[in-house]
């Protein structure tokens, strides 16, 4: 599903964010990306979502070499990936329902399907009853659930979450991760970049640890930091 082959990424300011990074994630896996700030987690996520291109090496996602994607195919490619961010990225001037419907409308989903899909998705994250509420009237955990509902509404094959629990308290964080697990159990591959030791240690999923742009550890049923 996601294959990094000797990937290098240098930024124009001279920073080498990734150095000879290789790893492979199979369909249906749940993977934590851990490491201190600046270790290269966000760079990996941006390479997967094709916001960045590798300086060297190959990134193959869903069987496609991202560097070879034509410009006009990039949006279509992104429809296979659900993105979740630390800051939720919701539109605060419209309702929860409208936020989800917006994501469907801008990829030209037929009108009839929009309502059905949006409500289904809200049902799954347990916010069906808050459909008419504006995001700022919700708690942080609820807002993140809305953003999760938006990420899965188009049934993507892959969910990429960049520090989704970064702004949340431990209990709420567990809720969000449990939700990701449910989504994972339904067959969606989940990659989650995180600093959250509790969460990683509790779930015992595969952990890829980065340090200075290199993969220093890749273990199944791993913990946040072994030492």
């Amino acid at each position, binding site marked *: 599903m996601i294959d990094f082959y000797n990937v290098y990424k240098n930024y124009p300011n001279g920073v080498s964010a990734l150095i000879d990074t290789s790893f492979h994630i199979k369909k249906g896996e749940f993977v934590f990306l851990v490491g201190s700030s600046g270790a290269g987690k966000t760079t990996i996520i941006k390479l997967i979502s094709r916001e960045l291109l590798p300086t060297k090496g190959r990134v193959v996602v869903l069987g496609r070499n991202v560097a070879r994607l034509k410009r006009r195919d990039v949006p279509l490619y992104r*429809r296979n990936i659900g993105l979740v961010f630390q800051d939720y990225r919701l539109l605060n001037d419209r309702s929860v329902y409208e936020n989800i419907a917006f994501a469907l409308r*801008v990829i030209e989903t037929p009108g009839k399907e929009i309502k059905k899909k949006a409500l289904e998705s809200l049902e799954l994250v347990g916010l069906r009853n808050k459909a008419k509420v504006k995001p700022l009237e919700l708690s942080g955990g609820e807002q993140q659930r809305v953003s999760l509902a938006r990420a899965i509404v188009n049934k993507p094959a892959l969910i990429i979450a960049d520090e989704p629990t970064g702004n949340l308290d431990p209990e709420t964080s567990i809720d969000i991760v449990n939700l990701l697990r449910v989504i994972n159990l339904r067959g969606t591959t989940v990659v989650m970049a995180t600093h959250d030791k509790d969460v990683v240690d509790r779930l015992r999923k595969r952990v890829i640890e980065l340090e200075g742009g290199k993969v220093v550890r890749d273990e199944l049923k791993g913990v946040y930091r072994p030492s």
Partner: protein
Amino acid sequence: MKIKTWFYFLGEAFKSIYRNGWMSIASVGVVIVTLFLLGSFMILNYNMNFLSEDIKSQIEIVAFVGEDVESSQLDQLEKRISSMPQAEEVDLVSREDALVRLKEQLGEQGHLLEGYEDVESNPLRDSFEIRSRESEEVSALAQEIDSLPGIVKVDYGSEVVDKLFTVTRVINWVGLGFMFALGASAMFLIANTIKLAVYSRRQEIMIMKSVGATDWFIRWPFIIEGLVLGVIGTLVPLAGLYASYQYVVDWVYNNIPFLPLIPPSMVMEDIVKILIVLGVGLGILGSSFSIRRFLKV
């Protein structure tokens, strides 16, 4: 794309225009001023051309006869002019005829000439109206006639027309300069409005990109926004020009009846086409400029 999508774009464009109210008003305002000015110049030019055609077609050369020339000598003069190889047609217009003609031209105001009607007080002169065989020869023929004894003054249509054109040309250049500057600032203001619109919707744009909206789906509402600003900026001056030109034509018809003006419907046809093309063009150019610079899709 589906019709529904286009309605969505249009809705987004209007929302954005409303949100950036003052900027939108400013850019539409400058488009209005620019196109109103352009339209006025076009109307002026059309009428100048119309008027000069009219003058040219009426008479080519008028030769005025001196007051000391006896009426018996007029026949002789007419023969001499007729014998010139370039002269095709020569008509004698007596003082009395000239007065009658002027009175006709004045129409309702004809009573102004009362008291000038008897031979003593008639202020007009006898004259010859001459048509030349070839229009290029008019000025040569006019000079030849001017040299005849008894002829005091020669007017020829193209002379008046030339003067008219010189004036029009100067007005046109000045106007063109103005319009160019105004057009540039209209485009700049539209570009700036779109830039603000892009800025105020950056969160939306970011989300659209991350969920996989196509580049054109993201761009269209902004292009349409520019287009709408341009179109509003076109319709207002068109309505204004039509109404005010109609008013001018009515006024001239009632007050200066001998001044011919083109009927509004005839001028407006061309003006509508040109102004719409320009308004739409300004709008699209302005918005694409900003989209290229500020909308990184």
